């Protein structure tokens, strides 16, 4: 398969996934119980005419397919409509929340890669020894720890007892260092589970490389350990890189609980409230945005890996064709 064809195929897969996802989410929200118009006015004495006007404004009485095709038509022209709950454009509504979540996930991803890959390499190189066992047990604990409980414990110890980190919130909007400072503890909470996953993947990939012939040969030639580790890591990088989509999905998924514990106004909390409110335009946009990011990241990584080692994605059929051609 040519590189261009591979890229086109990967991007097409992404597009199909997003279209299917948008349809499934729209359908689920359509059949979910509740009426956004009634939720807006709350438990009050309201006339059916008033409710009807609100429903009309958001086309809530239209048949399912009419609603969905209208949404698709608008989305193609980058018109995502108004939030039913807030009454103004979805992009403006979501932007401040998205900024917070991206900063949180970005910080956590950075920490996860540093810790996860670093400890994974050490664990593989010290296989069977005490260091390996400690890292292994730690990663099991990290994987098993419920993020909200861990968040509360960290909050109690580092914010309340020692007063090192801020207790809640995101600090002064627009002041990036202050915002990042507020996000460190939540990011560490997120990192614990995800880095445990990365440790496992890195360790598993590195074990093959540690005992490979080229590594033994490099050691025999007294090549510095740093260079050997770098070579091993480079060769073991494919599974680590391809897991980025999974890692990102885990991070975005875990933000819901973390944002609640640390009172962070991110996408997770917004998505939860929007789902229960049936704020379809907001849910659709967030789901597509996050889905798009995860899909594109995975595709980008796959393409990157393919460029480094095209044989990875070669199927037996492709091999036969290649041989036949030669």
């Amino acid at each position: 398969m040519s590189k261009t064809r591979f890229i086109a195929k990967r991007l097409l897969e992404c597009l199909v996934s997003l279209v299917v996802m948008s349809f499934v989410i729209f359908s689920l929200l359509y059949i979910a119980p509740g009426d956004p118009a009634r939720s807006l006015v709350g438990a009050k004495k309201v006339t059916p005419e008033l409710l009807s006007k609100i429903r009309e404004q958001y086309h809530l009485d239209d048949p399912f397919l009419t609603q969905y095709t209208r949404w698709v038509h608008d989305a193609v022209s980058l018109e995502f409509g108004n939030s039913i709950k807030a009454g103004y454009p979805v992009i403006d509504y979501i932007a401040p929340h998205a900024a917070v979540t991206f900063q949180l996930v970005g910080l956590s991803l950075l920490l996860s890669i540093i810790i996860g890959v670093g400890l994974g390499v050490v664990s593989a190189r010290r296989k069977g020894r005490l260091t390996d066992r400690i890292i292994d047990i730690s990663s099991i604990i990290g994987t098993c720890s419920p993020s909200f409980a861990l968040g509360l414990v960290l909050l109690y110890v580092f914010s309340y007892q020692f007063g090192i980190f801020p207790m809640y919130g995101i600090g002064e909007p627009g002041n990036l260092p202050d915002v990042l400072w507020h996000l460190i503890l939540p990011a560490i909470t997120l990192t614990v589970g995800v880095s445990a996953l990365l440790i496992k993947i890195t360790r598993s990939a590195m074990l093959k490389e540690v005992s490979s012939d080229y590594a033994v040969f490099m050691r025999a030639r007294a090549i510095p350990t740093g260079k050997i580790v770098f070579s091993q890591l480079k060769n073991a990088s494919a599974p680590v890189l391809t897991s980025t989509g999974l890692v990102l999905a885990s991070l975005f998924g875990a933000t819901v609980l973390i944002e609640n514990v640390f009172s962070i106004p991110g996408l997770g909390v917004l998505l939860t409230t929007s789902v229960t409110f049936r704020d379809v335009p907001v849910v659709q946009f967030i789901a597509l945005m996050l889905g798009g990011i995860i899909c594109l990241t995975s595709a980008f990584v796959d393409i990157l890996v393919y460029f480094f080692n095209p044989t990875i994605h070669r199927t037996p059929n492709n091999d036969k064709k290649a041989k036949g051609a030669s």
Partner: protein
Amino acid sequence: MKRQRKLLTRTVAVIVLILALISLSACGNSNAPGNDAAKEKPLVIAVPDSINLLEAGQEGSVIQYYIQQIVNEGLVAIGEDGKIHPALAESWEDENSTVWTFNLRKDAKFSDGSPVTIDDIIYSIERSADPEQSPSIAYFYPEGFTTEKVDESTLKITLPHAQSNFIWSISNNGGLFVTKKEWAENAEAIGSAKDLLLGSGPYKVAEFSPGSHVTLEASDTWWGGTPEVKQVRIDFISDNQTRLLAFKQGDVDFAFDIPISQIGDYQSVNGAKVQTYKDRSYVGLTFDLTVKPFDNEHVRKAVAYAIDSQGIIDSIKDGYPEKATAFTAPEQFATVLSADDAREKLNALTHYEYNMEKAKEEFALSGAAPFSTTIYYPDSNQDLGKASLVIADSLKEIGITVDVQEIPVEQWLNEMGSGTKGIDWMDYRPPTLDPAEIAIWFLDTTGQGTNPANWTDPSVQPYLQAVYEKSAEEGLDDLLKGIDIAQEQAIYAPIWWGEAAVAYNSSIEVDNFTSYTFLSQNWPKNFSFTK
């Protein structure tokens, strides 16, 4: 071995370096320009809710009301006494509760310094009455009302029918938040972080971070003078544990609506004070008369007798809320009666005290066979789930098997009075202090769906009509009579009148916190710093 250690050390060093850089830059900015905390300590209030929009007209959440209360004025406002006071209207009069004439204040200015004109007020009324622009408050305005600019300082509002409680509609506790017409017409999203509120109240919005916090600053253009508390910051902390820790840490001065179960934790904080207050909310059961066998009065009475309200309060609410004898709380009558007098009158109305023998007798009188039903409760209020289980246990004794199910609050709202649930919970906290606010909904028997019980008895209508036509004082007996008719027929089964708690630390003093405090014209003046 050494090299591996070196690798590990480098990894740790990189992490430490990143953290150190961020912390140093954060520390370096703590006194940066724009950080007003360094200049003047704000009053920090933590609320257990989160809002993404400041305007109450869209969603109508309690927190949005508390904010707009001090930013945008209505024609009238509420004082700390719970009574109506002048705001943008200096005085007013009405003809038969139908034609309302308001004499407007001439010295009112918006926080940007521009004067409040009659055109701004008419624009704001029309905006509030438009379901598309203000879905949450449009119901305050009857279909067909008109506004008339008599002169620059006289406004006339004509209603299609008499409505003595209309005065609440044009207060900022109800459905009017006056803003500047020219500004509002050019704003993209009023109340968002992009277009902060613009009003003529004692405070202006200095900064709003959706879902996180809002900072309010004293306005020097308010006709009532510049408020003493210069800055108020409202932090949205949904998680109860986090809010408690923030309070213990001293990050929060005042914690609003703390869970009853955490009162002890707040009291244990050095110097902290916890105060409970009647929050005017009503919690009870509604029977839908279109669902059999709840069309049978004896069945409803049997259920009402079988509810051990005090037992429920003691077991699941630590004894805090008050057992309700009517569907309106005594404190809701503040404009016409003291709470004690109101309580006495409400206790004298027909209600059904817990009595299993009478419950069995009523069930036998109904002639109904033992049956099964379901009580649904909203997921937003777990206490209602626990109370449902207690009620189910009692009803089993008289032959009614009850299944208890949790449903999303949105579904609960949607199905309220829809004719699908024989018994349903009602949990209502009136935004205004209109004594008839709940009654005009519960007693409106003019058609299907006009009240949550689908009750259609016309005998109550004359009393409700009198409530509309007479003043609150004059119509009080009619209001009580209407409530009594509903309760005599066991349409509604009151269980408790809500009680909530607030906590504040030693850095502030609070003057007698009541359910009216956050509804009053300049509520921050009830708070003062001790140090």
